[in-house]
C-alpha cells in the first residue's frame, strides 16, 4: 500500500466509522501482496525470511518473533496433514481495544495477511477465533470473507497459484483464557478452554492434533505491508529494534482516551501527554499499566521508556498489548487492584491450584479491604499469594499476569493499602 506509509495498518480507514470496503481496500493497494506472493515467484521460505528480517514480533503481548514461529512448522511430504493457521481475535484483555479496531474497520487487511501467513506455513485451513461480543466485527469479517472467496482470494487454487486455503470465522463462547493460544485451541475443538501442556507446542501438535500457528490480529495485519514494502521499510517505521508500527491505546481519566498507530518505541510520556492530552484537569498522574491489566505498573520515573518489547522490561514492566490504563489520584489504587483481581479470579479456568484457589482468596481480601474490613497481615497474605502465582508455579500465564499489577500496586501505593486497613475504610469512598 502506498498511500499511508507512516500508518500502514490504519491510515486508509475511513473516519466515519465504516469499514474499509473491498473496492477501497484494493484501490489503496490491497491484495497486491498476495499477487506478489502467489504470482511473483515468492516461496513459503522467502515469505518467512522476509517476515523474520522485518523482526515482526507477536502483537498479542508475548512478543515472540513471528517469522521464527512460522519456521517451526513441519513442512514437506511427510509432514502431518492438514496444517492450521488460527488468528487469535479473542481480545479480552481489560483496557485493550486495538484488535477490535482492525477487525471492524479493516477486515480485508486481516484476510490478506491470513492468506500470506497461510501460504508461508503451507496451511490448509485457517480460523479467525473472534471474541463473541464483537458482533459488529463478526458481521464485517463474515462479509469480507465471502467477498474474498468470490474474488478467488480464498478457496482452491488462489490466483492460479495452486495454493488452497479455507478460512472460517469462529465466534468464541467468551473466556479470557481463550487468549492463551492453547486454551484457544481447546475451545476451538469444542473442549474446556484449559490451556495445554507445552511441549508439545502448537506448531507441532496444535488444533485437532495437527501443526498450528496461532497469531494475533495486529500481527497478521502487518504481514501484507511487509511483503509489499519489504523488511527494511518495516524496520524504518520503528524507533527501536522491534520492527513496525504499533497500535497504542490509552484509557483512564485522561483528556483524550483513544487509539493511535505510532512508531514502535514511542514513549509512554509521549502517548500520555501528547496523544491523550494529559490528565483531565484537576487530576494527577499516579501510575499506569502499559499493556492491559496483566502488566506491572510503571510510575512517573519510567514515563520516558520507549514502549516496545525490549525496553519495557528494563522499567520492570512489559509492553503487553500496548494499550495502557492510567491511574489518577482521585481513583483508589486498592479498588483498581480489587477490580483487576476480581476479573482474573473470575476468568481462571480452574485447572491449577494456585490460580483458581489463590485468586479467589486474594479477591476476597481486596474486597474486604475496600469495604473497610481489612486486617493487619492482609498485605502479607496478598504478597504470599502473588508469590504463589510466579511464572512456572502455575500452569499458564494467567495468574502471573494477575500477580504483576497486584504486586506493583502494593509496591508503589503501599501507604494507600495501609490506610485502608488502619482507617477501616476506603479513603476515596
Amino acid at each position, binding site marked *: 500500500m502506498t498511500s499511508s506509509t507512516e500508518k500502514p495498518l490504519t491510515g486508509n480507514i475511513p473516519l466515519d466509522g465504516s469499514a474499509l470496503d473491498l473496492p477501497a481496500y484494493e484501490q489503496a493497494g490491497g491484495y497486491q501482496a498476495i499477487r506478489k506472493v502467489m504470482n511473483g515467484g515468492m516461496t513459503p521460505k522467502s515469505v518467512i525470511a522476509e517476515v523474520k528480517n522485518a523482526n515482526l514480533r507477536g502483537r498479542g503481548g508475548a512478543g515472540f518473533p513471528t517469522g521464527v514461529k512460522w519456521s517451526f512448522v513441519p513442512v514437506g511430504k511427510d509432514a502431518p496433514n492438514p496444517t492450521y493457521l488460527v488468528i487469535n481475535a479473542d481480545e479480552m484483555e481489560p483496557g485493550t481495544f486495538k484488535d477490535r479496531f482492525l477487525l471492524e474497520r479493516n477486515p480485508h487487511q486481516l484476510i490478506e495477511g491470513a492468506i500470506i501467513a497461510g501460504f508461508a506455513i503451507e496451511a490448509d485451513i485457517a480460523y479467525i477465533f473472534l471474541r463473541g461480543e464483537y458482533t459488529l466485527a463478526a458481521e464485517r469479517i463474515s462479509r469480507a470473507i465471502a467477498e474474498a472467496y468470490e474474488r478467488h482470494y480464498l478457496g482452491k487454487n488462489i490466483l492460479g497459484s495452486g495454493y488452497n486455503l479455507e478460512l472460517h470465522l469462529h465466534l468464541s463462547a467468551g473466556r479470557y483464557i481463550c487468549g492463551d493460544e492453547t486454551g484457544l485451541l481447546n475451545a476451538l475443538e469444542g473442549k474446556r478452554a484449559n490451556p495445554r501442556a507445552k511441549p508439545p507446542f502448537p506448531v507441532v501438535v496444535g488444533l485437532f492434533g495437527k501443526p498450528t500457528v496461532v497469531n494475533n490480529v495486529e500481527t497478521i495485519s502487518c504481514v501484507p505491508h511487509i511483503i509489499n514494502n519489504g523488511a527494511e521499510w518495516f524496520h524504518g517505521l520503528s524507533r527501536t529494534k522491534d520492527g513496525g508500527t504499533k497500535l497504542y491505546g490509552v484509557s483512564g481519566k485522561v483528556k483524550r482516551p483513544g487509539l493511535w498507530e505510532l512508531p514502535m518505541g514511542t514513549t509512554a510520556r509521549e502517548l500520555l501527554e501528547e496523544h491523550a492530552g494529559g490528565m483531565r484537569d484537576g487530576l494527577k498522574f499516579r501510575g499506569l499499566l502499559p499493556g492491559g491489566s496483566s502488566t506491572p505498573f510503571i510510575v512517573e520515573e519510567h514515563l520516558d521508556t520507549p514502549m516496545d518489547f525490549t525496553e519495557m522490561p528494563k522499567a520492570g514492566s512489559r509492553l503487553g498489548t500496548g494499550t495502557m490504563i492510567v491511574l489518577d489520584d482521585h481513583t483508589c489504587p486498592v479498588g483498581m487492584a480489587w477490580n483487576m483481581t476480581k476479573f482474573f479470579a473470575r476468568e481462571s479456568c480452574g485447572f491449577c491450584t494456585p490460580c483458581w484457589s489463590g485468586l479467589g*482468596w486474594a479477591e476476597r481480601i481486596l474486597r474486604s479491604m475496600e469495604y473497610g474490613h481489612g486486617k493487619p497481615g492482609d498485605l502479607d497474605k496478598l504478597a504470599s499469594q502473588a508469590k504463589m502465582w510466579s511464572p512456572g508455579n502455575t500452569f499458564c500465564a494467567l495468574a502471573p499476569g494477575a500477580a504483576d499489577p497486584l504486586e506493583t500496586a502494593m509496591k508503589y501505593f503501599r501507604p494507600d493499602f495501609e490506610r485502608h486497613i488502619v482507617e477501616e475504610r476506603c479513603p476515596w469512598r
Partner: protein
Amino acid sequence: MATVYVDNKPYEMNPEENLLHGCVSQGLNLPYFCWHPALGSVGACRQCAVKVFKDEHDTQGKIVMSCMTPAAEGTRISIADAEAATFRAGVIEGLMLNHPHDCPVCDEGGECHLQDMTVMTGHDYRRYEFDKRTFRDQNLGPLVNHEPNRCIQCYRCVRYYRDYAGGKDLNAFASRNTVFFGRNEDGVLENEFSGNLVEICPTGVFTDKTLKHHYARKWDQQFAPSVCVHCALGCNIDAGERYGTLRRIVNRYNHEVNGYFLCDRGRFGYEFVNSERRLREPRLSGKPVSVVEARTHLEERADSGRVIGIGSPRASLEANFALRTLVGPEQFYSGMADGQAELAGRMIEILRRGPMRTPTLREIEECDAVFILGEDLTSVAPRMALSLRQSVRQQPMEIARQSNIPLWMDHGVRDALQDAKGPLYIATPYATRLDEVATATFRGAPDDLARLGFAVAHALDPEAPSAQDFPLAAEIANALKNAKKPLVISGMSCCSQAAMEAAANVAMAAHAALSLTAPECNTVGAALMGGSPLTAAFEAVRNGHADTMIILENDLYRRAPATEVDAFLGAAKHVIVLDHLANPTTEKAELELPAGTFAESDGTFISSEGRAQRFFQVFVPQNDVLASWRWLKPDKWQNLDDVLAALSRALPELASASYAAPSAAFRIAGAKIPRSPHRESGRTAALVNITISEPKTPEDPDSALSYSMEGTPDKPPAALIPFFWSPGWNSIQATNAYQTEPGGPLRGGDAGVRMFEPAAANGQTWFSDIPPAFEPREGEWLLVPMYHFIGSEELSPAARGLRELATKPHVAVNCDDLVEGAEVEVSCASGTFRLPVRLQPDLPRGVACLSAGIAPLSGVTMPAWGKIERPK
C-alpha cells in the same frame, strides 16, 4: 537408568519417566494429587513442586512440577528446599480453603490422600477467613456417593472416567474455584467401572455408597487378600469385615491382572455375603440340626456306596477336590452342563496346545490390534473390556512417539492422538458396549461368526481352511498382520466351539495372543479337575447307579431346564446340598449344609488366563458356616495345606496351584501377617461392654495371616497383602510402597501361578470343522444368549445396590411385526417363557437373543431353535 540427585544424594531413576514417578519409586515423600500411575501427568494440582538446579554450583534453582519434568540423567533437584516446601504448603493451603474439614463425618477419613498429603506438607494453620463455596450433592445411584464440597479440583475423576474408562456422563462444569465434577443431572453413573472413582478420588467426593450402609473406618476393618468371584478373570481384591459383616471390596493391585481397577460388579457384588438368603445353619429335612448331627448324616450317606458328587465351577479347587475325594473320582461330576463342559474342555485343549499364549490383562492393554470373535466382553469379562479401551490407544501412540511427547505426559499425548483409535474388530451376535471404540463390527449368528473367523485365518495363511470369503476378513487379517502385538479374543459365552476354533486358527495364523473367556470364577479349575458333565449325573440316577447325591455350591436350575432338574432331584433318595445362598436347588435338599462364601473360606480359583490364585478367609463366621472343603474333608486333612498336598498327589497337573500363595507356615521374622491395620482405639475396647478381659483372637490354621493387628511390620508377598499401608500413606495410594515402581510389578512378583504355558509351534494343525452358513428358518428363531453386566451373573444380583440395577429379562429381536415392550411367548426345548420384547434392528435376521442367567431364563439351553408368538 538415569542418575538423578535429590538433595545432593544420587538415585537411580527411569529416564522414560518423570521426576515424581522417580521420587515415589525411591520411597521419597513427595506429595501429589492429580498424577496417577495409570493416568499419567497433567500438572493441574501443582502439589509435587520441587526445586531444580542447573548444576552443582547453581544455588538459586527454580521451581518445577516434578510430574511434568523428565527424570533426565544428571538432573539435580531438591525436595527439602525451603522455597519449594513453602510453595507445596501453600498449595495445600489453597486446596483447603473451600474443603469442609469434615473428616470426622467423612467416609474417607483415616484413608484419605488429602489428609496424608496435608500432614506431609506440614500445613496446619488456617489463614482464610471468608466463607466457602458450596455445591449440591448429586444422587449418582446406589453405588457411588457424591459430596462435591470436599472437592479439590484435581481432575482425576473426569480423567479416569472419561479418558480412561470411556464414560460420558461425568464431566467438569464451570470454572475458577467453582469447578463442579458430576453429572449434568442426578442419575445412576452409566459406566461399568464407576466404582473406581472411589479410589481415584484423593478425598471424600466419591465414596463407596454400599459401605455407607454399614460403615466402618479402614482401621476398624479386618481384611484378607481375596479373588473376585463375579467372573473368570480373577481380579485381585481385598475384602474388609467388621462384626461379622462384609463391609466392602477394595482393589488389590496385581500388575499382571487388574492393575488399579475393578468393575462395578466385582466391587459392589460382595453384599451377597450379607444377604438374607444366606444359609447359616445345617438343616435336615427342613429342620435345624447341629453340626455334629449334620456331619454324621453326611458321612453315613457318603458311605452308603451309591453316592455321586456334583462339583461346581464356582467352588474352589479345594472344595471340588474334597468332594471328589469323598465320593471317589468315578462318582465325581464336574457340575457343568454338557455344552459348557465341552466348551471348557476345548478351551483348555486349545490353550495347552499352543502355540498361541493366553495373555494377562496387562499384556492385553499392550496389544495393538484386536479381533473379538463372539464375546460381549463388557458383560462377561468386564475388566478385559477396560483393558481393551487402553489397547486401542497403542497404535496411535506412535503419533506421540514421533512428536517426542513423553508417554506419561497425558494431556500432551491426548492432544496429539485426539480420537485416533487402533484396530479393534468385534464380531458378535448383538451390539456390545465396546462397539463404540471398534474399527468395524460384524453381526451374525454364532456359525457365521465362526465362518468369518475361518475366513480371517485363511486370509492370513492360505493353508488355513475357509468356506466363504467375507469383505471384512481381509481388512481384519491385514490389521492383525501389521500389528506388533496382535490379539484374538473368543470364549465360551458365545456357546460356539467352532467360533473358538476359528479364533485359534486366526491367532495361530497371525502369531497372535489368544484370550478365551470363561463364565465363572473357577470354570478353568473345574475343567482341569475333570469329571463327567451333568447329563451323565442325571443318567447315573436315572439308571439306578446312584440314589444319593452331594451337590457342591451349584444351583442346578441354572445349568439345565427346570423339568430335567426336577426329574433328577426327584429321582434321588437323598439330596445333600452345600451352598451359601438359598436357591431352587437348596430348596430340594434333604440335608442342607451352610457353606462359606469366599469371605469365610480359603481356596484357590483358576482364572480364564490359567492363573491359580488364592483367596483367604476374611473373618471367622459366628455360626455353623464352614468352608465347603471343611465340611467334606477327611479327618486326616488338618488344614488347607493338607488339602493342597493331597490334591498335588492325586492330580499332579494341578500341583502348581499349591504355589499360588505361601503356605500357612510362612512367617516374616517369625511373625504372621496381620489382617487388621493398627488402630488408635485398639481392639481391646471393641468388646468391653461384654467382657473387660481381652478375648483370645481366633487361630488361623490355614494361612500365614493372623486375626489381629499384631504381626510383622514388613510388607508381605503379593498373595498375602490384606490392605495397603505405609507410614504416612493411609490411603490406597500406599500401593506405591509395594511396587518396584509406581504402576509396575509388586515387589517379589505378582500374585498367582500360571497353570499352563502353551507348547511351542510344532506343526499344530488347523481346526477345520467349519459349520455351514446360518440359514434362518421360517416361523422359528435361533435363540442365542445375551449377557447383561448386572443380572446374568449368579451372585451379584443378590447384592443390595446391584439388585436395583440388574437388567430385567427380555428377548431381543430384529422383527418388523413386533413392537418394543410388547409381551411375547418364547418357546423352545427348555420351556415356554413370557417376556417383553426389545427391538434391536442390527441383529441378524432369524436370530433372537434371550437374557442369559436371569430367572426364568437361567436354565435355558442355548443356542436352540424356538418360536416367538404373541400371547393368545
